[in-house]
């Protein structure tokens, strides 16, 4: 008993010291840079180390499986089908050549066998395609030590199991508390800061403070998630007096974008903690939070806001609207349409997540918000790229829907999304039809030729 007492106080002392050290470290390396928008590059280093470890682990796993002569289940991110990169024309010619003995001249004609091409291509997409792969968050090439989708458990060696266990330990016992502390700091600073700024009289100073409070807190939140973001084309960053439109695949998008620019947001009113944050934020900056039931009123406010946005002299922020499947109801449709009808400059932004490090996709039918956040905070990191695309304005002969589709295809092209799943209701027909038409045009040339050919033959 005697021996335990001094030992106890020793433990308490050690605990106290380590906590203080932790907090000082926190302050110096994370929060201070966040306030000033500077980065020490720690996260990039972290990412490189992680990649090296993942690569080693995958190699080990493959070797182990080969030794035991087992088949390794390897999810392919590049697909399972051997694709030949030939064009429609070449393939159909190939098909015709293999079928007929007569010499192939270039006269346009139709063969019964042409259908094979479209048939096979179609079946290939049923077997495997880009977009659905992305949404089934289970396709990862290196075993990323998250083991959420690890089917090869029986093939790992002792060393690997230890590493995996270490990984779990680090993530849950070190990173998680750290991140929660950061998130807590960030959110409380946001709430307190914006409330305080809200008491100031309207004017330049208030705007200035509001901007910096928002930016600072979002940066802290970004670090709380260990989000490693690469920004491309920053010269196209949304400027004051415009509307920013982004593809929306996870709730984290907002944090990622808002840490790099000062936005007034449009979104649904939430209850609980989110509601508190929203109410605080709206004191310092004119965000638009709408209730589903109050849609009509809010719509008017929104229109007013947008007209303010167009008046360049008055506005010091960009309006931020998300297009996405996260919220999917008619009131949001109205806002989305509104943003395209209004005639302001639209700044498209494409966000793309790297699934190797932690999957940011929120399957809302499977997980609730809290579970989702916990999953985010216990993954290694969130790595994503943000592309700022050049601004677009509605042309005189375009209607709102065509303009919206144009913006969407620009974002889809950059984000590598073949399509339209993140649509949410604006008619997809137009975008889809242009792709289909291209193929039909190419094929028609093969069976009827161009007008010039026909006159010659």
């Amino acid at each position: 008993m005697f021996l335990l007492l001094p030992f106890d106080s020793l433990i308490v002392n050690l605990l106290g010291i380590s906590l203080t050290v932790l907090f000082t470290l926190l302050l110096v390396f994370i929060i201070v840079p966040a306030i000033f928008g500077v980065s020490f590059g720690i996260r990039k280093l972290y990412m490189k180390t992680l990649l090296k470890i993942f690569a080693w682990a995958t190699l080990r796993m493959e070797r182990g499986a080969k030794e035991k002569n087992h088949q390794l289940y390897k999810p392919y991110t590049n697909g399972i089908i051997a694709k030949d990169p030939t064009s429609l024309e070449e393939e159909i010619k190939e098909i015709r050549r293999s079928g007929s003995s007569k010499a192939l001249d270039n006269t346009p004609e139709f063969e019964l066998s042409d259908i094979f091409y479209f048939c096979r291509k179609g079946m290939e997409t049923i077997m495997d395609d880009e977009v659905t792969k992305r949404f089934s968050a289970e396709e990862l090439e290196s075993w990323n030590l998250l083991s959420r989708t690890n089917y090869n458990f029986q093939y790992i060696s002792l060393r690997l199991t230890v590493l995996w266990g270490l990984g779990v330990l680090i993530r849950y016992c070190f990173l998680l508390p750290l991140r929660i502390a950061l998130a807590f700091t960030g959110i409380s600073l946001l709430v307190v800061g914006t409330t305080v700024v809200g008491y100031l009289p309207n004017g330049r100073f208030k705007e200035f403070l509001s901007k910096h409070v928002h930016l600072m807190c979002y940066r802290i939140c970004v670090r709380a998630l260990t989000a490693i973001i690469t920004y491309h084309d920053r010269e196209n960053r949304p400027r004051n007096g415009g509307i920013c439109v982004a593809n929306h695949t996870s709730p984290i998008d907002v944090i990622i974008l808002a840490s790099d620019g000062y936005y007034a947001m449009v979104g649904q009113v939430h209850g609980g903690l989110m509601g508190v944050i929203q109410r605080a934020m709206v004191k310092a900056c004119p965000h638009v939070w709408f209730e589903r039931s109050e849609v009509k009123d809010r719509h008017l406010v929104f229109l007013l806001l947008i007209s303010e946005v167009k008046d360049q002299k008055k506005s010091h922020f960009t309006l931020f609207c998300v297009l996405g499947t996260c919220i999917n109801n008619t009131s949001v449709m109205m806002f989305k349409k509104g943003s395209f009808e209004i005639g302001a400059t639209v700044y498209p932004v494409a966000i793309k997540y790297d699934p190797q490090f932690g999957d940011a996709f929120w399957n809302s039918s499977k997980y609730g918000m809290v579970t989702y956040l916990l999953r985010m905070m216990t993954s290694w990191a969130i790595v994503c790229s943000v592309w700022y695309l050049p601004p677009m304005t509605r042309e005189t002969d375009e209607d709102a829907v065509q303009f919206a589709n144009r913006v969407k295809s620009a974002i889809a092209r950059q984000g590598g999304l073949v399509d339209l799943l993140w649509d949410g209701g604006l008619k997809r027909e137009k975008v889809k039809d242009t792709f289909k038409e291209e193929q039909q045009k190419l094929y028609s040339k093969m069976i009827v030729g161009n007008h010039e050919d026909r006159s010659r033959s």
Partner: protein
Amino acid sequence: HGSPHSTLLEGSFDASSLLLRLYHRFRALDRNKKGYLSRVDLQQIGALAVNPLGERLAGGGGAGWEELLGEVDFPGFVRVLAHFRPVDDDDSGMRDPKQPEPLNSRMNKLRFVFQLYDLDRDGKISRHEMLQVLRLMVGVQVTEEQLESITDRTVQEADEDGDGAVSFLEFTKSLEKMDIEQKMSIRILK
């Protein structure tokens, strides 16, 4: 973990890992976790929607989808995809004649394509059905007259018994020189 399923895919590549992969694909396509795929699930595939024959393939144009009344369970899914398995040279020699023909045989591949044309399943591709498929493949790029003349010519060339339609036998005959096995097969990466 059916052995009946693996026999459908036996041969040149590893059946079990491919089956597993297809199972995940099935699960991913089945958005509402119903346990089967409906026409809507297939229509949601973006890359299929931009294929001129996409609607047909998704809506039961090929052999198999329709039999199951618009709902495709996993065995059905595999059965249809098995049509596109590359043909192994060993298969043809050693096949037991009493066994049913493998799904990826030349005949079955041809039948699959035939059914893409023959919507009403009467065993014949009528002039009208041919016109419909052609229209799908060219969209608005070709005039009605041009399309009709192409259809007439094609039906005439293939039609042997003069009934104005192309039966399955006539269809196979006109394609007898075609290397169907290669053109209607999907090669899997190992």
